[in-house]
């Protein structure tokens, strides 16, 4: 019995144990991941151009002997830490409010969050230039007019400014990682605190935050590494102010405008990233180990999250949410619309409004290439999340539940792709497909290669989500089922999958959205047969057609709206079913 639902006896004639199959599947995935990581290591020693055949330490020498590298790492550390702080400052309260309170209209938050992730980073950064650039920024112009400043007092092109923009963007990803934790949390613990007279802030601090700490730490680690390798905001806002971060420095060094790319330098720097990631993973595992006993919040006893009643405070909460959406989503979206309508990006003026036209939309909608790209992207959006969520669920189950010796190594392997800049991961994948798989599996230049690489890279995100969610489901539910004679496969399908349905839907949607907007890997893997929509948008941008890029991005976002609406309707229903008493 669970939540009033009887688990029926298995109808299969042969009672196969799923455990060995799950371990075998995980083993294959880990092997592929390890092979690709070895490919990355090889790249770091391979003389440019890739495929040259000889190995050298030049990449390491050029990266680590340059004193500027260390200044760049300092910038990167500051930028990344501030980004995580901004992202969590927004995401954690937002996730709690949405999942644990009776906030009116909260399902809208999901839609807006999902919509936000589709916006290309370079266009958001460009939008912020028009808001807070010291000379042409709207906000600075207002302040100069009001207070007579000679130059705008706000400069978005500083490390805190960049972290602010990046953090607002990554708050959406943090939200998706943190929200399931609060959704699955047992409200009775908070209720007990309330009965004992604890005030709301104290309850949050003493009960809610510690219970969700593993998930928050996992999210922080994930966001930290994303921030370390973030490219678009540092490239647009940072370089414009001579601030280099890890990604822009490597980009400039490894993609010399007039030379062949230095993949060895990218690989060498990736090694440093892997080292940092291993350190962070080690810390993460320490928390994970302790969490098995301390952090399970869903047990067999009355899984009924009770919502906190906000009362009249909902207005203040909506003000906070509104401010976030205004800064992170609505303003950039409006700017995107504005930029798509003018012939070239320009500060607001009456003259610019008189130049409005739909020319960029007309060009994009009439494009044969865009239609082909939309089809390919549609395929990616369906296949990648489906395969990725399935594999990640299995991997997380092995790590958290199987008690297989050394299972944590599976998690390390699943996490490491996140530590490797995706561009070098894609280069390694292209290299393996081109040189080693060409006769066995001719994947090079096909949509299948894109699917495989995206899936492998997003496993790190999905396993973070599943790990956090699985940690919060106490083993006693499965143990009870096993005592009743159910085998592993049946336990997973009858107990874990329904309980994890919200997390599964969330992760599926987010990986779909990430697959939809993925650009860095696509730029290395796309050939004539597998072009994607972000590549078309990027094509406009790299060709200096910002307004064309904005129009293409907006049409792309519009294509995804039906999926987001479906999620809004269906995802909430899944949640309602899964948490029903």
């Amino acid at each position, binding site marked *: 019995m669970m939540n009033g639902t009887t688990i029926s006896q298995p109808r299969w004639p042969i009672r196969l144990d799923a455990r060995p199959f799950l371990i075998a599947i995980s083993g294959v995935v880990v092997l592929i991941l390890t092979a690709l990581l070895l490919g990355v290591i090889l790249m770091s020693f391979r003389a440019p151009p890739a495929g040259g055949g000889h190995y050298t330490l030049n990449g390491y020498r050029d990266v680590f002997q340059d004193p500027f590298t260390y200044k760049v790492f300092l910038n990167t550390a500051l930028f990344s830490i501030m980004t995580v702080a901004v992202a969590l400052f927004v995401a954690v309260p937002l996730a709690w409010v949405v999942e644990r309170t009776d906030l009116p209209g909260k399902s809208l938050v999901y839609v807006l969050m999902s919509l936000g992730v589709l916006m290309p980073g370079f266009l958001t950064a460009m939008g912020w230039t028009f808001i807070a650039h010291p000379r042409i920024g709207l906000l600075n112009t207002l302040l100069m007019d009001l207070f007579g400043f000679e130059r705008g007092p706000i400069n978005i092109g500083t490390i805190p400014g960049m972290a602010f923009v990046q953090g607002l963007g990554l708050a959406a990803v943090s939200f998706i990682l943190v929200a399931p934790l609060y959704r699955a949390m047992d409200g009775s613990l908070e209720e007990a605190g309330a009965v004992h007279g604890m005030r709301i802030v104290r309850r949050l601090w003493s009960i809610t935050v510690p219970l969700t700490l593993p998930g928050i730490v996992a999210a922080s680690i994930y966001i930290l590494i994303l921030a370390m390798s973030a490219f678009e905001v540092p490239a647009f806002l940072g370089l414009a102010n001579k601030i280099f971060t890890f990604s822009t420095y490597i980009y400039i060094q490894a993609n010399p405008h*007039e030379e062949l790319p230095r993949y060895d330098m990218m690989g060498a720097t990736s090694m440093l990233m892997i080292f940092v990631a291993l350190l962070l993973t080690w810390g993460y595992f320490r928390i994970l180990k302790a969490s098995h006993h301390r952090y399970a919040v869903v047990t067999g006893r009355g899984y009924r999250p009770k919502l906190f009643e906000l009362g009249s405070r909902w207005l203040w909460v909506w003000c906070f949410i509104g401010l976030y959406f205004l800064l992170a989503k609505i303003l950039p979206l409006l700017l995107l619309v504005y930029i798509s309508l003018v012939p070239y990006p320009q500060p607001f003026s009456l003259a610019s409004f008189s130049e409005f036209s739909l020319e960029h939309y007309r060009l994009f909608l009439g494009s044969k290439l865009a239609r082909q790209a939309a089809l390919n992207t549609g395929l990616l959006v369906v296949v990648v999340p489906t395969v990725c969520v399935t594999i990640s669920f299995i991997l997380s189950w092995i790590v958290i539940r199987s008690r297989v010796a050394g299972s944590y190594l599976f998690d390390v392997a699943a996490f490491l792709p996140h530590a490797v800049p995706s561009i070098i991961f894609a280069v390694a994948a292209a290299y393996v497909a081109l040189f080693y798989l060409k006769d066995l599996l001719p994947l090079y230049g096909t949509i299948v290669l894109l699917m495989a690489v995206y899936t492998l890279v997003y496993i790190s995100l999905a396993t973070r989500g599943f790990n956090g969610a699985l940690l919060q489901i106490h083993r006693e539910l499965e143990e009870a089922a096993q005592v009743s004679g159910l085998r592993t496969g049946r336990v997973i399908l009858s107990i874990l999958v329904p309980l994890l349905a919200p997390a599964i839907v969330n992760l599926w949607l987010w990986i779909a959205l990430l697959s939809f907007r993925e650009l860095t890997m696509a730029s290395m893997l796309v050939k*004539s047969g597998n072009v994607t929509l972000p590549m078309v948008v990027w094509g406009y941008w790299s060709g200096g057609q910002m307004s064309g890029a904005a129009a293409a991005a907006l049409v792309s976002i519009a294509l995804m709206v039906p999926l987001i609406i479906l999620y809004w309707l269906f995802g909430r229903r899944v949640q309602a079913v899964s948490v029903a008493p």
Partner: protein
Amino acid sequence: MRSSIYGNRYASVRWAGPFLVLLSIVATSETAKGQNSLQELVSASKKEGRLVLMSGPSTWGFERGVKALEQAFNQKFGLTTQVRFVPGPDMGRMAASVLDEQRAGQKSSTDILASGLDHVLRLIKAETLESVPWNKYFPELGGERVEFGGQIVQFYTQIYGGLYNTKMLPDAGKIRRMDDLLNPKWKGVMAAPPYAGGPARAVVAVPGLDLERMKNFYRRYNSLLAGFIRCGEEERIASGEFLLFFPACDILSSIVEAKSKRMPLGGFVPEDFAAIEYKYWSVPRNAPNPSTAKLWVGFALSREGNRVYEQHSHNSSHLIEGSEASRYVNEMTRKGIRFTSLRATEQQHGLEAILQVRKEIEDILKR
């Protein structure tokens, strides 16, 4: 054993006469073939029926440029070639991809490779490109644009210089020399590209420029710079985010593009930094549709095809009479600017020195 050796020698002497006769026949027929080769190229292209173009999108004037050229191309040769355009990564990564694909024994991802000077030198060294007898197929092309025995052909002229916002910084139009850029009143409004291949090549080739002078300039210039942007991001000058950009990789295509969008953008060429460089098209030896690729390049460089190409891409060669580039170079020359031409052929021997100079300048920019 000995007799057999003598026998072989005798045999070779015995066949020498007929062989020479045969050779002369083949040579004669080759000449005849040369006269008909364009037609043969068209026939071969007809069999291929398609062309894949993967490059930075501005190379071909985006999809609409490819479409316009495809229509004109098919009309000219009576073909029904399907052209597939794919926006690709930058020239360096494309060059590396083609090199890798060839080493792996695969077809290249593009039929025509568009590359910069340093890329082509690397590709030529790796024997990646096909030697095409361009002038035999397209006599009007002229010999000057074809380099390295037809492995590469110039498709547009890049003119070094500066770009500025004509509305917000009209004074920049008065810049005559590099030192004029060091005026402190322009501190905080100027941007540069973060790479310095162009200046490095200029140091090696332009009379009067030397490394010390260039380094001194960059040290002072760097202290006035607001930040870095890429070549091709001239919209950021027009928007007012920056007001001046130097050294721009190609001021002419930016100015022409700006005119078409009514952007407030002007250009200048400092007389002590007057250099022109070229971008090259080439056909990889592993191109999937090599005949169509050659025919397409030849057409795009013909007067008729180049009009269509230039209209959409804003790229033009000063060696084509009546082109924007030829008008601009002539006008600048009349004003006393003496351009140094940086061709791959002349630059090949100084490549390592150029890379060293580039590194030194880029080190200054990083400070």
